[in-house]
């Protein structure tokens, strides 16, 4: 069985600061981390590997990312935790990708790796919040998509069963493999590497491919392949400061009451 887990490097949000002059986020070289949702995705893959492995099946878990060369560090960390190998799509021509170009590149990476039984993505990335990559990859691979998995019940190589979130609550679904699954962050907690894992991650293969190597159409990658463009970003007006309620506690409370009443509460 072959499982591919898509991971994204995101800025470590514990460090986010704002530049007071330009009102933009200061990253200050803060090291990127694996998107927490993708960590959960990896853990689910590793659980399948543990379970099927115990039953004597050979399960291979590959982590896949598109990013700058430094992202290899994160892929190796995933390997330290139990993934078998990694593939990094890294090329200037992948830069500037929106979700469509990103999912296209990732689908090329997946095809390059062969026919996977299961692709697992985090439901969304904490820096973008779009939740589009998983369903788009499913579309590109023409595979069924099970989104927002809260609990994986079973995955036996021919089908998967999972509880997933819906607008009305949760539902238990079954999908045939190959399939794409996106996972909620609290569906599992990623395990820590062991000493053996750390050692293995140093030697494990991480393939790095450019656009040509991935067999991708350059017109559909990066900036060129992105239909959407960000034309402006700004700090929401509210952040520029609200009204300050002055006075002693009793007076402040008085004013608050008026405001609350003014809202019809």
């Amino acid at each position: 069985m072959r499982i591919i887990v898509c991971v994204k490097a995101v800025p470590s949000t514990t460090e986010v600061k704002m530049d007071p002059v330009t009102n933009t986020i200061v990253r200050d070289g803060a090291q990127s981390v694996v998107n927490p949702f993708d960590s959960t995705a990896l853990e689910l893959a590793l659980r399948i590997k543990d379970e099927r492995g115990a039953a004597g099946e050979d399960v291979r878990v590959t982590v896949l990312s598109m990013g700058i060369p430094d992202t290899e560090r994160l892929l190796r960390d995933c390997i330290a935790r139990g993934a078998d190998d990694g593939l990094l799509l890294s090329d200037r021509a992948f830069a500037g990708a929106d979700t469509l170009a990103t999912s296209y590149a990732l689908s090329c990476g997946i095809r390059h790796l062969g026919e996977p039984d299961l692709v697992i993505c985090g439901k969304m990335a904490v820096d973008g919040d779009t939740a589009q990559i998983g369903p788009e990859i499913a579309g590109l691979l023409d595979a069924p998509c099970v989104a927002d998995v809260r609990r994986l019940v079973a995955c036996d190589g021919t089908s998967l069963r999972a509880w997933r979130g819906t607008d009305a609550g949760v539902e238990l679904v079954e999908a045939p493999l190959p399939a794409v699954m996106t996972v909620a962050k609290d569906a599992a907690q990623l395990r820590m590497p062991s000493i053996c894992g750390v050692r293995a991650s140093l030697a494990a293969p991480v393939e790095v491919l450019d656009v040509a190597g991935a067999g991708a159409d350059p017109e559909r990658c990066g900036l060129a392949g992105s239909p959407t463009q960000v034309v402006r970003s700004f700090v929401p007006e509210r952040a520029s400061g609200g009204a300050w309620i002055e006075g002693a506690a009793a007076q402040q409370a008085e004013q608050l009451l008026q405001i609350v009443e003014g809202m019809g509460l």
Partner: protein
Amino acid sequence: MDVPAAGMKGPVQQGCTLIRHLTDEYDDYRHDESRSQGEAQSISFPTTEDEVRAVLRELHPSHTPVTVQGARTGLAAGAVPHGGHVLNLSRMNRCLGLRRDDGGAFVLRLQPGVILSELRKYLKAKAIPASGWDAASLQALGELREAPEQMFPTDPTEASACLGGMAACNASGARSYRYGPMRPHVVSLRLALADGDMLALRRGEVVACGRHLELATELGRRISLDLPGYTMPRAKNASGYYVHEGMDAIDLVIGSDGTLGVITELEVALMPVPPVMWGVSCFFADERQALDATCGLRDGVASAAAIEYFDPASLDILRVQRERSTAFSALPLLADDARCCVYVELHCGDEREALDALDRVGKVLRDAGGSEAATWVARTELDRESLQFFRHAVPESVNMLIDERRRTDPAITKLGSDMSVPDERLHDVMRLYRETLAEAGLESAAWGHIGDNHLHVNVLPRDMDDYRRGKELFGAWAREVTAMGGAVSAEHGVGKLKRDFLKTMYGEQGLRDMARVKLAFDPAGQLGRGNLFDESLLEGGA
């Protein structure tokens, strides 16, 4: 001499506006984390050294007892009042200045109420509140911004402790294995004496001649004293006054539990954060393997900065609470065969060095009968937080268990030991704990700083009979540990709760010597009454 008795209803002085009646709204200030309750008639919250001195001058003529409080996170009741006045320093929480010493290290000058977690935040952000700083300090702050990230190495589990309190009890933590306790990191301090006079102490300036010490206060009073004659153990120690021949005077004040004076200002040395910090939790099938591994780590892994232990009972309690409480559901899941855990933290110059250290840890594990696979290696911030959460969750979950039992019997409290022994007695002291606990049929959970042979063995009483027998057992341990050359309190200090152990350790004469030292600083015996020794030893004054 005229010393108001504890609990006496004394009039609150009118002269100093800082002094308030200790009414019910100040109820919190009658206790600390030790959960023992005290009593006092008045309280003050000074914000400057001058205010501290004004309060002390006001209280001195009537010889009113004064208990100094910081963040009240102590576990030995050192900050629990014993009648009289509570001098609470929590509002003295400003950073006063920064300089570089001759070696280039940053030295931060602080008020005693600065909270450790706040200090860490400042250092992480490289942004120390600097209002009112002089030009030289601001210049040093500029240099700090450009320099590699700095840290203050002392890391008590309770990060809401304040620096003054940490100095007063000579706090330590997991990393004290490598960096020592608070003491070596305090460069200077200012001490307000009971009469409002000041003593300024700077490391290296005043040292004892043999066991004799001569000090001069700012108002010109000379304090001349003979240090106690006891020899301190060769183990991690926070029991009684720190003394040795030719010692630095500042070290006498550090760890004196608020009995000599009020720390109004201190300077602490910072150090650069090690470039690579990895945490490794190693799991074992039995305790013997964990002890062997500890010795192996001590001998074979030079970059170990902390070596901690969690015994089978504490891991079992953690497993239960993880299932029960949502607050703990984010804990990493323990494997079923993980009986006990040794946590080692590696501080290295670069990643190659860390990988090399990791290999050494692996070899130690295999030699001790453990497995490299049964480990958690935390290399990322998130994983480190996760392991820290795990380590803090152990005492937390034991407290929760005790809280449950208190519902049926409110008199029950946890009994926690804090003793240490020299390296070569680790296996012996563990055998002592295990055999005597089994004999007494008591439930327990043990964890702590095994690298320093310093475990917190906690008796978990099911009823008052257990509680009583637990206390007896601790008394017996104090004797045995002293005989092994260990310390009755390695970390928490003696405060009011461990005075009897101190007597076991240093004997009647040792206590009398200590009382003599105290009276040289505080002739009326006003400060920190009930800490270290029974007040009967202070009768008669200096």
